[in-house]
């Protein structure tokens, strides 16, 4: 079976500054893949390159088909949901409106999906009409996940979900990500600075350094790897 997502030698730049120097990675269907690395390594840029939020060169294939360079809107409609840095929630709109926006590009009935979302995030029911900006950090992250789920994507791009969250919430968020992966068959590509939890949840991981893939492999291997342990796991 061909991988769901393939990046071949992708480069990206912000104006005159080159952020990715040729990144190649694959994500298999049903997998959770982590992208690790220090600040500025190009992790976020990689996700942005996939969702066409930043201009890129190189090949990206999704479900075997080439992803055009048209713009984030078309990528979303392709079946890729990107939860960016900062969550991308619409703070001025209500929780329910955020979910409705998630379902924006969907055709057909979405009532079942609302029910499904509520089964994963039951607290949403009581907070439907609350302004999203007044939610706590953890709740906003969950809302972002819920919204992405409403898109019923084949691939979920998650950018640093642990950012700004207390450890308890981080565990909770990743628990839900794993559930969505196992029960809904959602493939996940997660960018994380928290290498610990990322390597626990993901099957495969890539380590980026200065815009290039420095290491890759099954998580178990990387967890034992000398330099990974030193630089990212702290021991």
């Amino acid at each position, binding site marked *: 079976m061909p991988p769901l997502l393939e990046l071949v030698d992708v480069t990206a730049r912000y104006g005159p500054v080159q952020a990715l120097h040729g990144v190649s990675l694959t994500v298999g269907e049903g997998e959770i893949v982590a992208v690790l690395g220090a600040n500025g390594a190009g992790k976020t840029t990689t996700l942005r390159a996939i969702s066409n939020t930043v201009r890129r060169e190189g090949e990206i294939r999704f479900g075997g088909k080439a992803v055009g360079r048209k713009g984030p809107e078309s990528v979303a409609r392709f079946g890729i949901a990107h939860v960016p840095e900062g969550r991308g929630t619409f703070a001025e709109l209500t929780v329910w409106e955020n979910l409705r926006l998630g379902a*924006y*590009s969907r055709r057909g009935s979405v009532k079942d999906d609302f029910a499904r979302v509520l089964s994963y995030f039951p607290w949403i029911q009581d907070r439907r009409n609350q302004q999203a900006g007044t939610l706590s950090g953890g709740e906003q992250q969950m809302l972002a996940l819920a919204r992405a789920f409403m898109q019923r994507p084949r691939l979920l791009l998650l950018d640093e979900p642990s950012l700004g969250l207390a450890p308890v919430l981080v565990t909770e968020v990743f628990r839900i990500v794993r559930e969505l992966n196992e029960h809904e068959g959602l493939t996940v590509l997660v960018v994380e600075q928290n290498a610990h939890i990322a390597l626990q949840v993901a099957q495969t991981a890539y380590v980026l350094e200065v815009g290039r893939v420095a290491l890759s492999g099954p998580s178990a291997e990387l967890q034992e790897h000398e330099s990974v342990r030193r630089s990212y796991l702290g021991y």
Partner: protein
Amino acid sequence: MEAVRRLNYRERRANRIGTGVSPAVVIALVAAAIFLLVGSLLSPIFAQQTVAGLAQGAVFASLALALVLIYRATEVINFAQGEMAMATTYFAYQLTLWHVSYWWAFFLTLIIAFFFGAIVQVAIIRPVQRSVIAVVIVTVGMFVLIDGLVTWKWGADLKFMPAPFGNTVYHVGSVAFARQDIGTLVVTIISVVLLWVLFKFTKLGLAMRAAALRPASAALVGVRVNRMLAIGWGLAAVLGAVAGLMTEPTVFLQPTMMQAVLLYAFAAAVLGGLESPAGAVIGGLALGVFLNLVGQYVGFATSELRLPIAFAVLLIVLLVKPHGLFGSKQVRRV
């Protein structure tokens, strides 16, 4: 820790109210409404001026709402909004010349206005979208261009359209209400309500709001942001057409008919807070009533000073509330 939690909660409550409507403003408005009601009951002239002021204000409100729609989405002021409204009104006029009955011409014009606005956004605004000052200049250029085109095609002399509501005057006690004024109010209320329904309850309206608030995030859920902008401009043009068609019975058709209205609409829009549609409507109505009453009762305020007075009011309000009555310091998010 508790203190921090409490502070956050208060901040969140303020956010919950959303558009920065402070209780003081609400109280002031309710007081003003009561004042108007009482005054109208006591003095027929007061009542007449109030209703006439409301009708005028309704026209300001329509155009102000158009301005706010565009500003919310693209952070630019469309200087050509009035001229676009004027041009669409001339189009309606042309339809009546071709023996189309008034109300058919009205609705056809609204449809054409929508496409007019959308096309302007796509062809002229979109290429220069990145530079705010370039957009402003382009709208100024459009102002002049449209003015010239209309004058060339139809001439600068006064033209007349059939009156939409007739010239009847209703008498309630000793107070005279023009049917035209009532009609203007009703039409404006209907268009504002329809717009509200669109934005609050439909998928399209939600997408448009999302595109205006956070275009990058909207794109990530599949909203075609540019298309939403074009639709926004189309709707704004429709509002402008309504404003133009409701102005025509009073000042009749001439190329300069909307220029003063545009200025009052600016004042109303800023008064209400440029990002607040409700503010634009209330600002427009308030301005209309205020100007009429001041003109009636303050001797110094002759007609030449109407415009400066409107702006003086605006400036005073802005000094107290720099973001308008209903505005709040919105930080642009991506």
